[in-house]
């Protein structure tokens, strides 16, 4: 390490003043325009907890109704709304977002960064989530909540008379929230790969970062199939396109496939981050590094991969061939192995250390004891014959709550007790923590253990009432009592978190003597880390002497903010070599505007207010363009920046070096997954029908192939534009961009001409419907491509893009690579495939 001259006290104070000025949180109403990760993380987490409490109250109502047989506390329809919303809210508005919240809050300091690379995107994600969540939850107060179960199986959920507006609220509200989740996933992946402190090679990352990287990757591939399913679903509900209507060639099972391709990874998306919290807590309380770092990383990666091959175990009773059931049963058993490895890594770490047992460990160990029961019952239901009996009974209700509450809620509460000092510089109460734990632990088991037995005795799920004397009365009464004991425990945690603590003395900065970097952050300072350290160990606070002092004295990178911009370091993906000083977005209302107008689009669609939808869509586009124009790819005044320790780094990079390119790549991977799900639908219909065109005319061969050709030419023109720009020939660049846009327009028209000119009626049969959907998907992507080209043209004309500063163009070309693959696949299949049979 190159030593730099020790700064005087005044110089240090000046640096701190600069940093404080740059990173300050606005006051008054503008507080809400903050984009700093600590605020966004806190808001995100608080909102997720509020939604959890709301869904918890719904669960208590459900339990009251079921306490005794033939009860009429809730009407059948209210009950159905309550259990649907309970599941939906817990999954989409608590379990997933809470980890996005924790990650946004913790990751920057854990990685030794000032911020994640796209703070405004985090803010956009939060506001989308909050608005969508309130919209979905609020529906129950109007009796209009979704009432078809959180799995939304058609044809029940496509029956408008039964499901009313509730199903639209589910589909559109949650699609909106999924957008936020994917935004967060992009943010987290890029942040973890590109914003680690110098020296923190990928095999030195804190386990939390590893897990979040895996989970964000899973979100990227798991959520898009659901979004594709949502699109098909809404097309059926709004316009009568028969994707799931068996009378017109559709099939309800396609939804089940798409839903569970999302739904099963979802369980691990929820569970892995909780294990990640445990992987931070256990080494601290064993006071030693984790045993088997590579074991646990491999196990987590393995769990992530396997989780995508299990979805059919939710469909063991749908009549699929036994041979495929056996395959998915084996895969479902296999996932128990990496899960077991992770548990044994914790036990081994405890055995190899000297354990200090405190409240976070109590919740962690209690959660593990519960989770293991859930894991064992999981092994049971993964066996096909047993699932034939247990499926859709209270046995499954018990199993999934043992998994999710033991594997997720208890570790989260452990995390709250563990990380609370980072929020408030004080610990939560040990005494209240222990009371809460024992109430939650005993209440949970009293509530949920009897459900195993009720289920085996034949009690189906999702029943609003049940007859007396067929063997369930006592089990249900006991469950209800247990649920209230459990709720009392949760209430004590809430009281402990909310009770005023300003009279208590502040504690130490690192009260548990942890070894990882997040403990260097100081709650009252918003800059994250005072200076960005060089990392040489997985547990730097334990292994690198004086590191905290050196960071605080500004002896590492970026100790100042002399240009008045929020800055952090970008490093290389594997070895974390510094490659850029990144200027991140600061406080802005644009992300709120974009989130609220996009929310307006989804909400207006729910009520079929087409004009409002259009207005909101235009506003969304305007807000996003304004956001991009003012906040991204800004050409800096100087090209390089002295980041300290004798190092200078560029302020502008493009292509694979830049975070923007990675974000585009990752976003398009998710987008490609949604597209692949639609194509899966196309071939799914082909497999279930002898002749899936059912005699309907196809789009022909000519027009689709013309579209393939034109899209390819447009893509080539984009490559030419990039080449021209590299040669600094502005006029040619603009010409190629314009030509490409015109070609794309022609390509889109050719694509639409096929099904339009042959008179394909999407409401007549599923074949024309799926052809139209694939066509529209591709053409809309072409339209987005044209907007991007126009944006590049405008940037070029405004002098904001040049040969050296070509980030916009390179990102758009990257988009075009994905677009041309999509277009060739779509129109190639639509034009040629029906003829190849």
């Amino acid at each position, binding site marked *: 390490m190159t030593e730099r001259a020790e700064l005087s006290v005044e110089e240090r104070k000046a640096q701190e003043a600069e940093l404080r000025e740059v990173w300050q949180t606005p006051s008054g109403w503008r507080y809400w325009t903050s984009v700093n990760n600590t605020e966004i993380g806190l808001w995100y987490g608080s909102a997720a907890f509020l939604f959890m409490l709301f869904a918890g109250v719904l669960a208590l109502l459900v339990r009251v109704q079921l306490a005794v047989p033939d009860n009429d506390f809730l009407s059948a329809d209210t009950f159905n709304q309550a259990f649907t919303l309970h599941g939906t809210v817990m999954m989409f508005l608590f379990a997933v977002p809470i980890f996005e919240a924790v990650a946004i809050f913790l990751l920057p300091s854990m990685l030794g960064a000032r911020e994640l690379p796209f703070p405004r995107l985090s803010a956009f994600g939060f506001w989308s989530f909050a608005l969508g969540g309130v919209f979905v939850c609020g529906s129950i107060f109007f009796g209009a909540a979704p009432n078809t179960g959180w799995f939304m199986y058609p*044809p029940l959920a496509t029956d408008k008379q039964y499901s009313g507006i509730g199903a639209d609220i589910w589909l559109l509200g949650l699609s909106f929230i999924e957008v936020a989740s994917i935004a967060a996933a992009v943010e987290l992946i890029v942040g973890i790969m590109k914003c680690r402190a110098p020296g923190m090679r990928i095999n030195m990352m804190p386990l939390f970062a590893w897990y979040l990287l895996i989970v964000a990757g899973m979100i990227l591939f798991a959520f898009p199939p659901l979004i594709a399913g949502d699109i098909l679903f809404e097309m059926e509900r709004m316009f009568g396109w028969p994707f799931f209507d068996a009378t017109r060639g559709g099939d309800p099972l396609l939804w089940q496939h798409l839903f569970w391709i999302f739904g099963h990874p979802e369980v691990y998306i929820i569970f892995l981050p909780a294990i990640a919290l445990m992987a931070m807590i256990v080494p601290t309380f064993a006071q030693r590094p984790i045993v*088997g770092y590579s074991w646990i990383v491999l196990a987590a990666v393995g769990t992530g991969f396997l989780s995508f091959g299990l979805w059919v175990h939710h469909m063991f009773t749908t009549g699929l061939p036994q041979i495929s059931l056996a395959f998915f049963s084996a895969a479902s058993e296999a996932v128990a192995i990496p899960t077991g490895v992770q548990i044994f890594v914790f036990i081994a770490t405890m055995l*190899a250390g000297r*354990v200090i047992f405190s409240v976070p460990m109590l919740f962690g160990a209690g959660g593990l*004891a519960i989770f293991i029961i859930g894991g*064992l*019952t999981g092994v049971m239901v993964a066996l096909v014959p047993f699932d034939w009996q247990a499926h859709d009974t209270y046995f499954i209700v018990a199993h999934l709550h043992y998994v999710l509450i033991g594997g997720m809620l208890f570790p989260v509460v452990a995390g709250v007790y563990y990380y609370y000092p980072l929020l408030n510089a004080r610990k939560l109460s040990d005494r209240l923590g222990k009371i809460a734990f024992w109430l939650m632990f005993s209440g949970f088991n009293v509530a949920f253990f009897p459900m195993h037995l009720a289920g085996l005795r034949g009690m189906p799920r999702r029943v609003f009432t049940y007859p007396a004397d067929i063997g369930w009365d006592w089990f249900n009464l006991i469950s209800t009592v247990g649920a209230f004991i459990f709720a009392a425990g949760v209430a004590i945690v809430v009281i402990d978190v909310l009770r005023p603590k300003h009279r208590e003395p502040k504690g130490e900065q690192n009260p548990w003597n942890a070894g990882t970097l997040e403990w260097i952050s100081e709650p009252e300072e918003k800059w994250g880390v005072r200076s960005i350290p060089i990392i040489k160990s997985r547990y730097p606070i334990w292994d690198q002497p004086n590191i905290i002092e050196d960071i605080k004295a500004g002896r590492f990178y970026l100790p100042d903010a002399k240009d008045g911009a929020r800055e952090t370091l970008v490093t290389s993906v594997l070895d974390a070599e510094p490659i850029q000083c990144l200027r991140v977005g600061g406080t802005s209302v644009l992300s709120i505007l974009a989130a609220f107008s996009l929310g307006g689009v989804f909400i207006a669609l729910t009520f079929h207010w087409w004009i409002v939808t259009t207005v909101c869509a235009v506003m969304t586009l305007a807000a996003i363009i304004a956001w991009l124009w003012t906040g991204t790819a800004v050409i800096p005044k100087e090209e390089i920046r002295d980041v300290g320790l004798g190092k200078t780094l560029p302020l502008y990079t493009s292509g694979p070096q830049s975070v923007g390119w990675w974000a585009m790549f990752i976003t398009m991977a998710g987008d490609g997954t949604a597209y692949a799900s639609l194509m899966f639908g196309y071939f799914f219909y082909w497999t279930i029908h002898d002749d899936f065109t059912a005699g309907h005319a196809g789009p022909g061969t000519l027009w689709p192939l013309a579209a393939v050709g034109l899209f390819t030419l447009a893509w080539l023109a984009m490559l030419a534009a990039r080449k021209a720009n590299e040669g600094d020939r502005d006029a040619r660049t603009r010409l190629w961009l314009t030509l490409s846009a015109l070609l794309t327009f022609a390509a889109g028209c050719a694509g639409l001409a096929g099904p339009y000119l042959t008179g394909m009626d999407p409401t007549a049969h599923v074949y024309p419907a799926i052809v139209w959907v694939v066509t529209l998907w591709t053409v809309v992507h072409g339209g987005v491509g044209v907007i991007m080209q126009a944006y590049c043209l405008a940037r070029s004309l405004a002098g904001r893009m040049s040969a050296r500063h070509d980030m916009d163009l390179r990102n758009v070309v990257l988009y075009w690579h994905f677009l041309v693959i999509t277009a060739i696949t779509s129109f190639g299949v639509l034009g040629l495939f029906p003829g190849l049979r």
Partner: protein
Amino acid sequence: MFRVGISAEGADPCRRGNAGHIASGDLKGARAIFRRIFPILLVPLTGCSGVQSALAPAGEEAAGIYQLLLVMVVGGVLVWLAVVGLLLHAARRRKVPWTEEQAGRLILFGGVAFPVAVLLALLAYAVWLMPVIRPWFTQQAPQPEMIEVTGEQFWWRIRYPAVDGMPAFETANELRLPVGERVAFSLEAADVIHSFWIPVLGGKMDMIPGRTNTSSLLPTKTGVFRAPCAEFCGTSHALMAFSVIVMEPADYLAWRRAQAAGNGTRGSEGERLFAFHGCAGCHGIRGMTQAASLGPDLTFFGQRQTVGAGTLANTVENVTRFIRNPDAVKPGAKMPAFDMLPAADIAAIADYLVGLK
């Protein structure tokens, strides 16, 4: 609101003797052992209310799955005790911590080797069990006679095929089966997804619009059982069940013959009102002139255990309540309310229906 389950008379597992035989002899050895051990462990599980319990098997498939369950429960309890015991041990402070090598070995054996071995064995057991308890029907194999069951919101349409010179007939919400004979089912749905599940006889098979699933069951004990719908199907999903009556083959044959013959006319006032008020526009009664089949068939309604597909006990009073306002008894039921009819007429119709034995 007052509702009842199906009377458990004759179906009480506590009063029944040892389980009927299982067709496959392979299962017998293991079963003998478990019969001895498990009554002790499972007393709180089984109890005496077995009309709808997977823990009181009365059919081959349910018995096979029950044994798998017993194996897994024992194994699961042992694994849980071992891991949680180890966890508690690990949480204690010790003078000499394990070395990293020892700890690594624990991960290898506890986290990998042991689970791999156990899971492989379990998987082999389950994959072997699948075709044993649920034989595959292939296109080539001779199709056994299939009873067609259709799930409708919120009741069950049941069609027995023509066999041995007896014509086919339709009934609803009550399935009768012969003991000791394998019966195949063809399962369909009329509106939304439902699931066919008789817990005492075996596992579920979904009924999906646009598809026809098949399943088969082999009852091993006589008795009266209950079968709920197992896939959420709308407002009154909770109130959609049918009764299953497993009979001696001779009794079954006699019942079937009587069903196929239909029910004679009573010439009663209730019968006249049934036709006059339009009930016969939806409900068929074989022997009457019209043969509508929009709603449940009512030919031998008086023989059935319940009214409203498992919702209320089949008494004149309950049938009256149901006719007056089905939605109040069973929210979301498709049958309209007939509370505009004179009370005396409804009572006469109810009386007539309950008399259809």
